[in-house]
Structure formats: C-alpha cells, structure tokens
C-alpha cells in the first residue's frame, strides 16, 4: 500500500538587522529568501517517514513566484520526491494572501493529489499567521492536530499518534485519523543538511507549476476581508541588565532584582 505525504513549503523573507520600509513592504534590498524554518522540520519529518516506510511519496506544494524554486529545490535536495508550485498573475497582483486564500489554493492541490497525510509548518517566519494549516484542514474536511512536536505514524491504519504543545507548557497525546493535516513544530526532529548528490539530483526532480485555471479556481480566490493598510517599525524598548561574576554572586543579584521589580515576593 502506498502512502502520499504532502508538505507545504513556503519561501519566507528574512530581514537584515538594518532595513527600510518602502510603501507597504520592507524594501527588497534588505530581504533575503529562504525555506521557512518550520517547513524545514515538516519536510524532514516527511522524508524520515518515507525512508522508514515502503513506497512513501513526498510531494511539496508551494505558493510562490519563480524565485521560490530555489527554495523548493532545497526541499527536493533533502529528499522530497517532487514539487508543485502554484502561482498566477492574480496572486502576484493581490499582494498579501490571507490564511483563507492560502487554504483555498492549497485545498485545490490537496483535492488533486489526494494525500494520506498533509504536513505544514506551525507558522511562517515572515507573516506568522499560524493559521494556514488548520484552515486547510477545515476547508478539505480533514482531521487535524496543531503544533505537533512528536509523531508516530501508522501508515497501514493511516493514524498519526501525536504529541502536541498546548499553552502553558501542557502537552497533549492524541491519535488523529487520516487523512489529516498536522502542523509541525520546530524541534520535532533534526533537519538534515542536503547532501551534494541530493542537490544535484534535485535539479532533475519534477517541479510542476500550476496557475489558477489549472486548479479549477478563478481570481475570486484572492478576495479577502483582510487588507494590508500600513507597514511601520514599532518603537522598541529594551533594557538589559548584565551581571558578571560567579553564579553565586549573580544569582543573589538576580534574586534582589526580581524582588525589587515585584516579580517574586519575599
């Protein structure tokens, strides 16, 4: 029995320490693009499942312009089998894509690929909605578990035994019946470096590009109640106190400080 795992992979913008804002975005000169950190863990989790199991296919899906193909190839280099990239002039013109739009776009890919399991990152490092994975599950009617930091997958039964992080340090153990969407937390595994052969092979792996038409969607998919109205750098205030010395001395100083600040009593 074969298993198909779909992994959402986003190319995120990383901002230099010093930057300027231009209009509604950070000036492109200060941005570098890389694979979203959470998605790196999701890819690794899928690749480990494919290495451990028989006949597991790992497919990545990315919403992004041509530039993102380098990031997609990196996921292929780490062991994904093939990639799907969705892009369209309508998406480029829309600017900000909200979680609902992304879920609608990804849902169309899920419907055509029919995966047994969908892994997404918990969130993207740039816009940090943290909602796309769960919104996608809701949209396609899959079971879901968010913020998964341990996964034991039974391919035959298509059941994922997961540990998920809840608020306040509480964790939940639960079984999720597939097909399911799991949003993957950093730390669930140790993402590998791509090997040189992996990188070379990645150049030859299939990477299919779909426009809205190809997915049976039209431009209305980008309609959104969410508008980006302004971009600014918040005033930040930082006040760090550094104590130097032996642990005994600094611990005393810290304790005094915490009492004075009212953080602890006594």
């Amino acid at each position: 029995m074969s298993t198909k795992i779909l992994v959402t992979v986003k190319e995120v913008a990383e901002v230099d320490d010093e930057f300027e804002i231009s209009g509604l975005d950070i000036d492109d000169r200060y941005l570098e693009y890389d694979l979203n950190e959470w998605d790196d863990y999701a890819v690794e989790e899928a690749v480990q499942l494919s290495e451990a199991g028989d006949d597991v296919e790992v497919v990545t899906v990315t919403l992004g312009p041509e530039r993102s193909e380098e990031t997609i190839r990196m996921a292929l280099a780490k062991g994904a089998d093939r990639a799907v990239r969705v892009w369209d002039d309508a998406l480029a013109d829309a600017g900000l894509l909200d979680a609902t739009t992304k879920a609608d776009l990804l849902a169309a890919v899920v419907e055509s690929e029919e995966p047994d399991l969908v892994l997404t990152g918990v969130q993207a490092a740039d816009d940090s909605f943290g909602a796309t994975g769960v919104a996608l599950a809701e949209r396609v009617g899959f079971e879901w578990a968010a913020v998964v930091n341990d996964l034991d997958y039974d391919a035959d039964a298509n059941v994922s035994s997961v540990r998920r992080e809840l608020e306040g340090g509480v964790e939940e153990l639960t079984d999720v019946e597939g097909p399911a969407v799991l949003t993957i937390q950093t730390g669930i595994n140790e993402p590998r470096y791509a090997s040189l052969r992996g990188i070379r092979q990645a150049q030859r792996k299939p990477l299919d590009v779909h426009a809205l038409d190809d997915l049976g969607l039209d431009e209305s998919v980008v309609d959104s109640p969410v508008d980006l109205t302004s971009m600014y750098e918040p005033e930040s205030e930082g006040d760090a106190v550094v104590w130097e010395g032996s642990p005994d001395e600094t611990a005393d100083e810290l304790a005094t400080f915490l009492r004075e600040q009212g953080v602890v009593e006594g």
Partner: protein
Amino acid sequence: MDFDLPNEHRMIRDTVREFCEAEIAPIAQEIEDEHRFPESVFEEFGQLDLMGVPAPEEHDGAGGDYLMYALVAEELGRVSGAIGLSYVAHTSLGLMPIVMFGTAEQKERWAEPLARGEAMGAWALTEPSSGSDASDMDTMARKEGDEYVIDGTKQFITNANVANSVLVKSVTDPDAGYGGISTFIVDPDDDGFEVVEVWDKMGLNASPTCEIKLDGVRVPEDRLLGDEGDGWTQTKKTLNGGRISIAALSTGLAQGAYEAAKGYATEREQFGRPIGKFDAVRDMVVDMDRKIERARLLTHKAATQYDAGEDVTRISSLAKLDASEIAREVAEDAVQVHGGYGYTTDFAPQRFYRDAKLMEIGEGTSEIQHLVVGRELGL
C-alpha cells in the same frame, strides 16, 4: 561571459556555508588550540558527499567539477584553514591522482573509500632535503620479484597520521632524472611505514603535518600508479588541480578575515563613531574587498578552464600566487583593524593570519609559482 554561478553550484555553496557556520566555526579555534584533527567533521563531510566532489559518480564521487570543488574549498577556508587544508590534500593529492592515473582495480580498492569519505587520503612528495627541487629525491623503490621495496623519508606530509593511503613518490630509475620517478600507493599499515614526527606549526595545527619514514616497505606490483617513470608527469598534472584548490582555500581565508574585520569596523566605536567611518580603517576594508574579488575571479577562471580541459599551468599558478598573498595581506590587515583584540585568540583574524602564511609555501612556494609563470611566458 557569465559570472553567475549555476544554480546547482550556488545551492551547494550555500549548504556548505550553512554547515560550516553551524558545525565548524564554533570549534575552529578549539581544535587549533588542542592540535586536534576533527575526525567527526570529516565523517559528516562523507555523509554530505563532500569527500569526492570532483571524482566521477561511478567511483563513488559526487561527479562535480573543479568549480564546485573550489567553492567547497573556499567555504571551508572561510571558517577553518586547517580543515580546509586536510580536505584539499585528501581530495586533490590523495584521491584525484588515483582517479586520473589508476587502474580499475586501484580505483575500486583505493579511490572509492576515499571518495565515500570512509578513508582519508595523503600524498608524499617533499623530503627533508628536497623541497622546491622536488626531483632531487632520495626515496628509492627497487624491484624485487613481483614487489617493490621502498626506502626513504618524506617531510611535511599532510594527513599522514590519519590517512588510509599515501601516494609516495619514489625513484625507480636513478639515472633517468625526472623520468625516473614513480608513484606508489602505500598503506600506512604496511610494515616499515612509520610516522616519526607530527609537527607543531605556526598555524593549521588541526591539520596534521608529518614526517614519515619508509624502511624497507614492501608493496606488490599492483601498488604502482601508472607506469614506472610516470611520477613526475603525474605530479605536474596533480599540482595544476591542487593549485586551484589552494587558491580557493586562500580566497576563503581572506573572506573569513575580511568578514571579521568588516563586522568589527561596523560595531567598534571610537571617538564617538564606528571605526569603519574613519578613512584609515575604511580603506583597509575596501582593499580587502578589492583583493578578494580578484583572487576569487582568478580562482574561478582557473577552475572553469580546468573543467573545459584547457592547459591551466599559467592560470592556476597565477591564482595560487595571487590568492595566497592576498590571504596573508587581508588577514594581517584584519588583525590590525581589530587592534589589541585582533592579537588575542578570542578573535579569529590571528588564526587566519597564521593559516594564510602556509598558502604561500605549500604546493609550490610563491617563488616557484613565479618560476612556473615565467616559463609559461617564455622568460
């Protein structure tokens, strides 16, 4: 003319850089201080397919080209000259001669474990009294039945005490001059092979540099690489590739020193502003950038021409000569930019400075590079 790296090459460079920053940079000074060869780093190189970058895939290499190999060497140099030096000695000198000149059996037995990263390579040319005049060689190999018996001493042999094979240059015909030199694949486990010294050096101490003694080492005929008398021609071809990797490593050392200096010049404030805002410091940093661009262009040109099968004697010598001098100059200025801190081992520039000096000496001194280029120019 296309000065952009192909996508595959860029991805490989970026991945190696990521690995180097996370796994090597944090231990670079520690392994130097402890004079420790970091075996586990080389094991990881094996897993990443880095130990046989320019070796063909049918011999368990990555099937890359010299441009790709140069990019990897530069990235290693950027964080650790010692790891970079052991790496290029393994690849250019220990592995590639077997790939280029070996029989099918020799490639399978000796080259493939090196390319997979299961073994370290080395080669032994220099002797205590034979350096720049490499042909004035005392190590002798005499035929006895279907064996050769090798006697001699080899000096400054990188990786010898961690290697699984050493390509030993020996005289098989004392009357034939350059044409009387042959190459043998020696296993350090062979009887009579002894590492008699591991040198303490000015830098690069995480890369072992050894003196070895061969005392009646008996090797079967099938350890002869190529034919008797091929040794010198092989050496010249090997060093053409080797010089490109030393040029790349030097470019990396310079790049590492430059980044440290630029970072420090931006952060360090004196007289109320970053020191990089003062002309004297700015000009030093700008000159670093200028020189590194030159070293990298020459190195990439030499690698590209090598990959195209052209004769690279002149261009690889120029690249090695220029990049090694640049590495030393840039590293020296990086120490200067850091002031007193630059003289401490808490900061990387002193390490780059000490490491860079060897690049002007190893694989042909700067003086010998001038000689090589002079000949190529017909002078």
